[in-house]
């Protein structure tokens, strides 16, 4: 068991966050900067098995195509990702229009606003419908989190959370691990209505 008194230094928080997120089967990757995060994302996508469509689709999608949604990256970030994807013609990068993919997408990559070390939780501003859909309809969710945005506990960052929640039309998501159930014989199964896998890319430099 780890010590529950969480250290306040940045590295300590990142270590506790990583440990707690791993406990709930999230995969945590450390990278130096945003370029590293993009590389990691594409590496994960390259390893991914073909999509298992949940809804019978009218048009047949080529099984080599990988749909990658990046709805909440800023313009620079999206451009950067888009430039990289050009080298991989089978990657279909989208920023919106996710309702056209009810059967699912391969990967959703989003930034996370905060991390909560105590429980390994991501806080994601999901007010934008496309962000919500990307994190719900994807088989693999990749969340990019800056180490400097990790906080000790939810209560310790109450003011920051209230700022998010207070907005009219706010949809604020705490995400901890992939979707799961134990409804049949109390046996844990990962991947129910949400992502089958959650990857968190911890970025050292913001």
């Amino acid at each position, binding site marked *: *068991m780890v*010590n*529950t008194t969480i250290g306040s230094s940045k590295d300590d928080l990142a270590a506790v966050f990583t440990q*707690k997120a791993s*406990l*709930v089967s999230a995969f945590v990757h450390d990278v130096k900067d945003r370029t590293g995060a993009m590389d990691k994302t594409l590496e994960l996508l390259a390893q991914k098995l073909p999509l298992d469509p*949940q*809804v019978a689709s009218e048009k047949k999608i080529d099984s080599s195509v990988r749909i990658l949604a990046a709805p909440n990256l800023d313009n620079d970030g999206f451009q950067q990702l888009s430039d990289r994807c050009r080298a991989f013609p089978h990657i279909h990068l989208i920023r919106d229009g996710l*309702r056209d993919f*009810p*059967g*699912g997408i391969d990967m959703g990559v989003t930034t996370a606003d905060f991390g909560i070390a*105590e*429980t*390994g*939780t991501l806080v994601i501003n999901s*007010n*934008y*419908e496309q962000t*919500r*859909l990307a994190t*719900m309809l994807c088989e693999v969710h990749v969340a990019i989190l800056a180490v400097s945005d990790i906080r000790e506990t*939810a*209560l310790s960052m*109450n003011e920051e*959370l*209230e700022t*998010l*929640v*207070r*907005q*009219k*039309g*706010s*949809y*604020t*998501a*705490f*995400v*901890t*691990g*992939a*979707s*799961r*159930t*134990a*409804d*049949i*014989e*109390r*046996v844990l*199964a990962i*991947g*129910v*209505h*949400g*992502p089958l896998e959650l990857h968190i890319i911890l970025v050292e430099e913001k």
Partner: protein
Amino acid sequence: MESHESLKSYKNRLDDALDNRFLREAMDKFAVAYRASRENAFAGMDVADLIQQVADIKAAAIADSKALLDQFIRKAKAHGVHVHLADRAEDANRIIGEIAQKSGSKKIVKSKSMTAEEIHLNRWLENLGLEVTETDLGEWIVQLRKEGPSHMVMPAIHLSRFQVADLFSDVTGRDQDAEIDRLVKVARKELREKFVEADMGITGANYALADTGTIGIATNEGNARLVTTLPKVHVALVGIDKLLPTLADALTVNRILPKNATGQAITSYVTWITGPSECTTTPSGKREMHIVFLDNGRKKIAADPVFSQVLQCVRCGACANVCPVYRMVGGHQMGHIYIGAIGLITTYFFHGMENAKNLVQNCTNCGACKAVCAGGIDLPHLIKEIHARIQDEAGHPLQSLLLGKVLKSRKLFHSLLRTAHLAQKPLLDKKERPYLRHLPMIFSPDHNFRRLPAIADVPFRDRFEKLHQPAKNPGFTIALFSGCVQDFVYPEHLEAAMKGFAQHNINVTFPMGQSCCGLPAVSMGEKSAARDVALQNLDAVYLDGVDYIVTLCASCASHLKHGVPKLLKDYAPEKAAAFADKVIPYSVFMNDIVGIESDVSDGANAGRKTAFHSPCHLCRGLGVHNTPHELIEKSGNQYVPTEEEETCCGFGGSFSTTFPAVSNEILTRKLDDVTESGADLLVTECPGCVLQLRGGAAKQGRKFTVCHLSELLYPRSDP
């Protein structure tokens, strides 16, 4: 479940559940695993302090609920939410039906909501011709089976993977393997279509934050997120008890809710929604959002000084997880809609006396629920209060009425016991320790699961003068409170104790006017008799010069210490408090006050492997856990731990005679646990537990013997 079920028909259902081998095994595994995972989730945290924080937050919110509701409505309306108030279940159903019709919704997806179960919302909507699909895996399974949930958090816990596979084979028209991962993926696929086609989504809410007009929903599967994102209309059905002032309050409650529910540090998702969020398929670009606040008796509960704490419930389901009866019979037999200890109580308020009258009796009063309750609710006490209330409203059954009447008069009660002693003579086994050979006619054959002891030839009260040795310069003066079982059935427990008192120069008084402690009356729902008896005992025991009131019965001790002051709070509060203050259980008195050393036993009775059964009223009622272990070691015997030392033995006073089949199953599990430990001897500190355990061990031919702690410390010299 019909609403006028007889006790007999209810018992038949219990018997069926006890015969369900899958259910029994699943529940047993769950009970043991839950304990470990909960402990793990709370490792390093001050749980009692957390529970107190939650209890305080919820209690304050209940007291302030009108203002919080007004504040919430103001905020939510400003965000563009349509807020509705429903006084009764039908009102909420009608409102939600109208929302569906006005918005032209035909297909509805739902995430799990106990509040929707409470009002039978699906039935209502389906009668309007709407298609309603539950999207939580467990809820979907029970919906397809046309059942209700059997647990508040795990609705399909009563079913095996094979039953689910058969069900899914029917639904999909294809053979499905009984492999859990695959079955989960079947649900993922089958339900995705429903999400996409749905016009309207219905959720409950775990939290409603007045400060910001936000609802909070905790889920694991991700279904509630889709329910609140894909359809054009979102309706949240929220009990007014879910209102909290601020986000910080909800975050505090959320620190304990998932840990208590499933042993998770936090659920996979916690979703905070503040008004209509973006929805690209509507002309306005915003989802149509409705919040329906449900009263359905909650305001009445909030105004009730005894029951307002019921609303401190956060719906974690932990009270079911630790309940020995739930473990034996499952949720469909342990609640109407709401399951577990809280279900026994809320059924009365939400679904009426008829649905509650059998359920409230199905409680051993072991207190395991109270010990884990996230909201700090005194569940066993409230169950007894409901029982008493139902009897006051519907009439007291003859048996209970007689018990109450008899207990009110100590002389009548004691002379009846003496008469019963004579009447039992032809029925006795002629062994050294007499058991009743046949049961008297008033008991039916199914009470025969344990051998019942005979009433002693001479009760302790008639032996006291002879045993009493006045102490010179006594270290302590005690009043011995015998309780009726030790006085009339097991006087030898007290005789053994008297030996020890004499050895340690303790002055013992035995107030002859003492009667039953009154707990049996409480457990039969005879509150006024219990109060009379408590007052009699207060009069009987002179406190002047008495250092302690010592009792060898943990149930008496716990009732005298905690129950009596509660009963007499409007009658003799100070006197009751002074009395309660002096009450001490035997083990604590001998070990911590007298401080006996390890020289109490002779060689002949030493060296045995000795397990301890901790009476519920000792470990949870009085917070005594390790003292008896120390005394076992001091007796020269070796204490051996058992897996479920602090789990109820199934006695529970009148519980074991009302529900003998369930009592027997709990007992058997207990005896198995002791057998597994390899113990030669099982010691306990309550005559009720001795009666249950010794009678059961004799009936089942177990290899170990059962005795009271006093008999272990001071065995009879000549058998």
